[in-house]
């Protein structure tokens, strides 16, 4: 006992740093949330008006709900597209895995702004996709829905976050013993049945890890909706940004930020509870794959 304690002492500075780094800003936010603003001055008193605003003005609820929905949509979208990619990568010879990994990560090497403006060029009314569709005669008028719509936001959120999902699932698939898949086939499972009965349950930890990453990144994404979403591009994050900045309404900004944080954490906890209590996850996490 004493020995274990003496070793964990090395982790203490980092732990202190993490706690202070995470808890202090939250405390500050909470403090601001009960202050009031008068003539662009922050007055330190105790006033729950901003919290009341959160529950009475539906805008905030809608924006938080929208953040959660886009996070979930991105997580589901990347999972559906990511699984075949990850399983395919796991079957490549080792050398090709390196190549596939490099290709997978390419979008991340390009700056986010560059990527988003590139998408505008692809999806715009005079963009690549519309020109292509027009030239092969599939459409006569450019499709307006391709850009500045919830569709374009969702598409790019999925695209941007796909590498994180694929990476998480891929590592998880690599850990599943190939013989388990062979055993399933041997016992009469078609490839798709082997996927759903063996690979999917045993890779839920990877799916969970990927989902959390994508969910958090997409739900908190500010640039993608505002640059590609057009009129649909208002987000809770953008609201926080403008409340802190131009509006100088720090109490409301703090309330919204805290509420968003709480909603994200709650969703993640519920997801974790559901996914990680599955038998596949328990088997995988208790080292049953070896």
């Amino acid at each position, binding site marked *: 006992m004493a020995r274990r304690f003496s070793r964990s002492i090395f982790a203490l500075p980092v732990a202190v740093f993490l706690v202070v780094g995470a808890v202090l800003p939250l405390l500050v936010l909470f403090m601001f949330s009960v202050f009031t603003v008068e003539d662009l001055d922050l007055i330190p008193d105790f006033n729950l008006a901003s919290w009341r605003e959160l529950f009475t003005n539906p805008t905030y609820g809608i924006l938080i709900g929208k953040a959660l929905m886009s996070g979930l949509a991105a997580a589901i979208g990347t999972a559906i597209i990511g699984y075949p990619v990850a399983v395919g990568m796991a079957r490549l010879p080792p050398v090709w895995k390196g190549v596939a990994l490099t290709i997978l990560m390419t979008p991340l090497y390009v700056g986010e702004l560059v990527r988003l403006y590139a998408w505008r060029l692809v999806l715009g009314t005079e963009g690549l996709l519309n020109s292509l569709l027009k030239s092969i005669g599939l459409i006569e008028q450019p499709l307006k829905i391709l850009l500045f719509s919830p569709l374009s936001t969702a598409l790019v959120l999925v695209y941007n976050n796909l590498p994180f999902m694929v990476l998480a699932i891929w590592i998880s698939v690599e850990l599943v013993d190939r013989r388990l898949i*062979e055993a399933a086939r041997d016992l009469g499972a078609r490839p798709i049945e082997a996927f759903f009965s063996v690979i999917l349950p045993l890779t839920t930890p990877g799916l969970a890890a990927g989902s959390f990453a994508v969910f958090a990144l997409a739900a908190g994404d500010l640039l993608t909706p505002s640059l590609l979403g057009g009129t649909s591009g208002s987000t809770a994050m953008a609201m926080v940004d403008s409340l802190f900045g131009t509006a100088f309404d720090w109490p409301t900004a703090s309330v919204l930020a805290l509420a968003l944080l709480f909603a994200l954490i709650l969703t993640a906890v519920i997801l974790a509870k559901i996914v990680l209590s599955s038998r596949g996850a328990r088997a995988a996490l208790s080292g049953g794959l070896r």
Partner: protein
Amino acid sequence: MTASVSPASIAMDGSGTTARTDPVRSPALLSARGLVKNFGKSVAVAGVDFDIPERAFTTLLGPSGCGKTTILRMIAGFEDPTGGSLELDGQSLASVPPEKRPVNTVFQSYALFPHMTVAENVGFSLTLQRQTKDVVERRVQRALDTVHMVEFAARYPSELSGGQQQRVAVARAIVAEPRLLLLDEPLSALDRKMREHLQIELKDLQRRLGIAFVYVTHDQEEAFALSDLIIVMNRGVIAQKGPPDEIYARPANAFVADFIGGASLVSGRVAEKKAGSASIATPLGVIEAEANPAVSVGGEAVLVIRPEHVAFVGEGERADAEATVIHAIYQGGRTLLEAEAAGVRLKAWSTERIAPGAQLRLALDWRRIFVTEV
């Protein structure tokens, strides 16, 4: 004759119905002709022909890397042959996926699904066949009963010992009543006592089910204990196939003789050949013994002398050689001696403890010594 017999019907009918005829002579269930498998430039299986009898326990025996597991994987459908053919009941297995073959496998590492209970593991194939819950339950129960694991049905694989996992793997592989059961070194991860115990059970199970077992192992004692038919492999080719006693008594070549039963090999030149026997000139003198018909006069050959073919004789009795003991390995009850005579090393059993350096007079059992190819 008995194409698909359920485990329980045999268990209830009693014993002996399948033992009357020699299982090795039962019709061929699986035939391989010119079977080849290359991995890139390396040759794993270099063109082999064999038949797996429908009711026999057949073992693919050989050192690691000899191609035995690759053959098993081709039969299961996990690897596509590079060349040649595999036929089951006269139907080609080419392009038949693993899930469509009436073949099930017991894997070396058991490969039990860690997220399913024992009962779910065993019932996996039946569930895929969309059998009703009642049928699945009954047949799972029966299969678990066959391997004495009924009381573990609700456990998870991680809660079982190696031997118990092995039994579950067997139950899972026989529950769908395959025509052919493949076993890939299924006992190699177990301790000796458990291994010997399960060997007896596996042999017994094969007799009761009356289906073809194809067993892969590098352990010759295991092969002898279990098999009706042994196929000895070396470097991707078949070195010899036949019943265990045939392979032991008449090894086709020096590799088989050496790999099986720890024989002493004495090289020499064939001096004379008669029907069934040959004389071979060795450092021990010219010895006439039963011979592999493939040896030719004037060619190199080896004399296969097993430890039990060597006897110690006293002064005044006829002796074939005077030898000096080099090593004595005490094995409890008996000692394996390695002795040198005329520059040749011979192994022999002794019931007495003899120290290295001792001088012995040896007599060879000429009727059981065998001459074979190098």
